[in-house]
């Protein structure tokens, strides 16, 4: 339950040959607490840069990032970050990896392992606690990374194309799993995963927004963005990328990702956003600037 606000944020880099390069220009938007926002844009437009600033791994050249209305300095301690690349520690077992956030904050090893076991079960890795990351498939490593992030239960979840390296079907499963975790009420760490799949009766608006994490999800895949998010923000092609469109996604929750992509409402949304994104993708092809993730 954390809100994050970009206030006129710009970020400059220096190119290898010493010229200044403005990656992001004058970006302003707010992600309210408990909502799921996807950021799409052509590759190299600075999406990851934006996320790194939200994490506090990078500082803005101008403007500021505010977390729960407080200007962010240093690392964002209310956020976890799921990276595009493998970020598990290869020399630790899956169990130790999942428990890492707890052990770092001083939780006793036994307790940390007990809680890690719960999370391993929840992401379907109960039998793989003693394996090393290199012994797992790409999809399993992503599950482990998800558990590693969720176990420390912070209000804001930053995700940088987390599933882009996976094949289409594994990806769909992972997206489903993400939504299941996110839509499940009670982030206290004891919710059963099945709860998120229940349909009908309770309106999601009644219980969910109070306990849900805030998610900022970066992707270049518009379908993924619409399928997952409450709001899609489209960035322009770089350099000087800026926000070109914001679109509410009014699809009902919980969503069935297996069916969603063929529903008329989804297709309408896709068409409306693709018109905007298509322009930017075309533009990014024309400008032969060095790409930045």
């Amino acid at each position, binding site marked *: 339950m954390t809100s994050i606000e970009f206030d006129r944020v710009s970020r400059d880099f220096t190119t290898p040959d010493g010229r200044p390069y403005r990656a992001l220009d004058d970006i302003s938007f707010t992600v309210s607490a408990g909502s799921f926002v996807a950021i799409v844009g052509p590759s190299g437009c600075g999406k990851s840069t934006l996320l790194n600033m939200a994490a506090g*791994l990078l500082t803005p050249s101008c403007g500021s990032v505010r977390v729960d209305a407080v200007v962010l300095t240093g690392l*964002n301690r209310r956020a976890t970050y799921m*990276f595009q690349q493998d*970020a598990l*520690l*290869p020399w630790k077992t899956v169990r130790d990896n999942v428990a890492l956030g707890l052990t770092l904050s001083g939780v006793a090893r036994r307790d940390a392992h007990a809680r890690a076991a719960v999370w391993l079960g929840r992401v379907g890795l109960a039998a793989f606690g003693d394996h*090393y990351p290199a012994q797992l498939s790409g999809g399993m490593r992503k599950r482990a990374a998800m558990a590693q992030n969720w176990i*420390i239960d912070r209000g804001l979840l930053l995700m940088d194309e987390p599933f882009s390296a996976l094949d289409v079907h594994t990806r769909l499963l992972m997206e489903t799993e993400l939504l299941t975790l996110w839509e499940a009420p009670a982030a206290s760490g004891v919710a059963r995963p099945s709860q998120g799949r229940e349909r009908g009766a309770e309106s999601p608006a009644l219980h969910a927004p109070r306990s849900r994490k805030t998610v900022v999800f970066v992707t270049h895949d518009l379908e993924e963005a619409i399928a997952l998010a409450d709001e899609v923000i489209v960035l322009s092609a770089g350099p000087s990328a800026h926000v070109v469109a914001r679109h509410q996604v009014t699809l009902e929750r919980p969503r069935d990702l297996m069916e969603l992509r063929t529903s008329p409402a989804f297709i309408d949304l896709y068409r409306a956003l693709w018109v905007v994104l298509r322009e930017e993708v075309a533009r990014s092809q024309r400008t032969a600037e060095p790409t930045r993730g």
Partner: protein
Amino acid sequence: MAERRGEILAWRVLVGVAWLTLWQALVSLKILDPFFVSRPTDIARRVNDWVVGGTIWRHLATTLEESLLGLVIGSAMGISLGFALGRSPVAARVFDPYIKMLNAVPRVVLAPLFLLWFGLGIWSKVALAVTLVFFVMFFNTYQGVRDADRVVVDNVRMLGATERQLVRHVLIPSALTWIFSSLQTSLGFAMVGAVVGEYLGSTRGLGYVISQAEGTFDTTGVFAGMTVLGVVVVIVSAGVTRLERWLLRWKV
């Protein structure tokens, strides 16, 4: 792999036997003069005499002691400095030319100095081994720390690690893979340092045995000394390989 292991062992033995047979044959056929190159059977007999007579053990023990001390001290120094400079790019740039300069000094030149400073005992040899091991360990640790995966570092920082936790959970394990891959080289260097040191001035050790033999044009003694040294290196490095495999077991 398993079925190939026997095959490889067979080839290994074959190569060794072929080499020794060729050597022996060339000497027997008087193509080579045994005064200069000895002959395998003589060398084997000499090694056997040393082992059975027990004269070799105290020399071997001395050389191993010096090598081990050199390895431990050199590693400790190299790893610490590698870490310090790996974490501090500014200091790394300051020290860079000096480290390169020192590394370029031929160690043989240092040996007489060390004899002067540390005497004829084991410490002058340990010092020589240290100068060799230090640089291998330093460069590898430095590289290992610099080479730590940026994403893993960022991930661990986001998960709440302090600087010290970052060093312990990421930088040390990351550098360890580099350090271990250089351990074989370092071990070899430590023994070279010890033996060269002994060779240039000592009262015991394999280097001393070899230099005594050379002093009397006893080529059999020289080759026998080299044989003992070689066998010991192979045995010790097999042990290191096993240790390495265990410590880096997460690398599938």
